[in-house]
């Protein structure tokens, strides 16, 4: 079986997408949600790199992805910091119990 690098990357994108969505779908723990979200974003990043390779502009795609990784890390850091505060203030990480912010 002759697998090209594009096919392998595409399978990777779909696999990461599935894992990330599954994580968001079933997890109630806030940390697991952030992990799922990160996996989802990584799927999108891999997709962008793949698209750059197919379009013949790999450098553009890679530099974009680097930028997004930096921004996304900040999202993760702030998310985790808020989670730590939530754990300290409310004593739980279960999203279904966190109804205090509900408008």
């Amino acid at each position, binding site marked *: 079986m002759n697998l090209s690098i594009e096919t392998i990357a595409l399978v990777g994108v779909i696999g990461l997408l599935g894992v990330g*969505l599954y994580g*968001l779908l*079933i*997890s*109630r723990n806030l940390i697991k949600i952030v992990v799922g979200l990160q996996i989802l974003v990584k799927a999108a990043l891999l997709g962008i790199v793949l698209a750059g390779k197919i379009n013949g502009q790999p450098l553009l795609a890679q530099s974009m992805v680097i930028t997004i990784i930096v921004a996304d890390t900040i999202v993760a850091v702030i998310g985790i910091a808020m989670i730590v505060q939530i754990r300290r203030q409310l004593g739980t990480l279960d*999203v279904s119990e966190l109804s205090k912010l*509900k408008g």
Partner: protein
Amino acid sequence: MAELIIILTILIPWFGGLVVWAVGDQHPNLQHRLAAGFSVLGGIISLFLLMYIQDVPVVRVDIGGVFGSFTLVPDGLGVYLAIIAAVIGSLAVIFSNNYMKGEAQLGRYYSLMLLFIGAMVGLVLSGSLLFMFVFWEITAFCSYALISFHNDDPKAVYGGIKALIMTQIGGVGLLLGALAAYAYLGSYQINDFIANTAEFPTGVLAVIAFGFLVAAAAKSAQVPFHTWLPDAMEAPTPISALIHAATMVNAGVYLLARFFPAFEPVSGWTIAVMTVGLLSALMAAILAAGTYDLKRTLAYSTISQLGYMVYAIGVSGIYASQFHLLSHSVFKALLFLGAGAVIHAVGTRNMREMGALGKSMRFVAIVFVIGTLALAGLPVTNGFFSKELVLEAGLNHGAAWAYAGMLIGVAITGYYSIRMVRLVFFNPANSSKQPHPTGLAMRISLAVLAVGTLLTWLLAGPFSRMLAGSLPYHRLEPESTLDVVLEVLTNPTTWITVLVVLFGISLWFLRGRLAGLIHALQPLNRLTNQDFGFEWLNRQIIRITNRVATTLRKTQTGQLNWNVFGIVGALVILLILIVWIG
């Protein structure tokens, strides 16, 4: 030069609105004067448009992409409506100088009013359907915001939101028609559309035609969308005069008249237009005869008179409908501003608490009676000539049953006109309150409009030449004023109509002897108290919407897992659809 004038007619009121708003509410006198100055300037400049009447765009800005070109076309139909908006707008602003004295938040009031005037001018001069829609929505917004001007009054807020929602229904119809036209033509230009209707499939043209009819009915408060206009009377009275009598509610009639050549071949369209007009004219006249709120009476009579114009378009009387629109704008603005002067003086809108104001407010009484004569269609006012032209067109080109229905409407119009005047001005006094004197600004506005009511019928000839000369698709014949006057005066139907009006008036004086008849009409009275069931219909729609919303709300749990499930589910469904179709 034409470019400059046409753009200034829109931009001067808008700029004035900004200036008045920027001046700030701590300088009310300056705000009054600035608003009056800018609106009068806009009105004067709009008159110069008369020199540049043509049927090709004078301003063309290519926006590009799907937005097409923004064009302004000063043809006869657009220019006269722009002049009505700018001139009556300036009179309403002048009137407000007295009427709104001492009110808070004048900046909001005047800037919305000036924004409205500019948007109305843009609406009627726009040659592009898309930008017409944009201006259409700006006028709807101003109408909503000004109805709810006293936003601490729940009734005003209710009326404003009701008007907004109901005119939005019409906006959807207009947008639907505009997009369908663009999809088939690749252009939003109104003249391209009218010239090329033969290329459209019948079904698509019918969708556009009836979409526009819905838009017109909602904007012009015609059956079954008329219920918003009486509730819009919570607005300050100059607003009612300007937006809900003289200009914005005419936009629907304008739309129908503008597109008449395109939609005439659509089967059933003219009949539908005629029926909408007839039902509105009759039902609103009956409702006007039963209410004791002065402004609501005038609102119902506006619906009724707009019904005459819509009816005239349904029977191919474009010229008659537009001439009646011109007359109606002038005399109804006069009546509303007169009512405003009365309400300002006695502090109530209930006609049962008025009476005997004829002595203490002689000037207002005189101009109000002039306006009422025009409303009833009695000589020699502008309403007399234009209403006769409408009815003549109805008799010559329309069904006999519809003409008979309109005659009944004419009789009821006579009845409620005399009832209104008697209750307000000439009944024995029901209140010992001493009315406030009428201010100078009020008198100026009223005097100009009263003179207009007595004289605008002299414009019949130039008006006809202007429309015929710049509307190539409408096939109008130019006529001179003398022709029109002779035609009206020598036509026997004119005198039948006048007799019918006098019959309606005499009904009021004979109402004591007709006690048996009035008693027999009790069920009708109960029906009118509920607005012929339309209010009930509105409430049912609101109730059903609320119930559906409450039910659907349960799907919005706010839970992340559930939302992700929704996203994934939708994605899966979309993928299945793509695989299945592709």
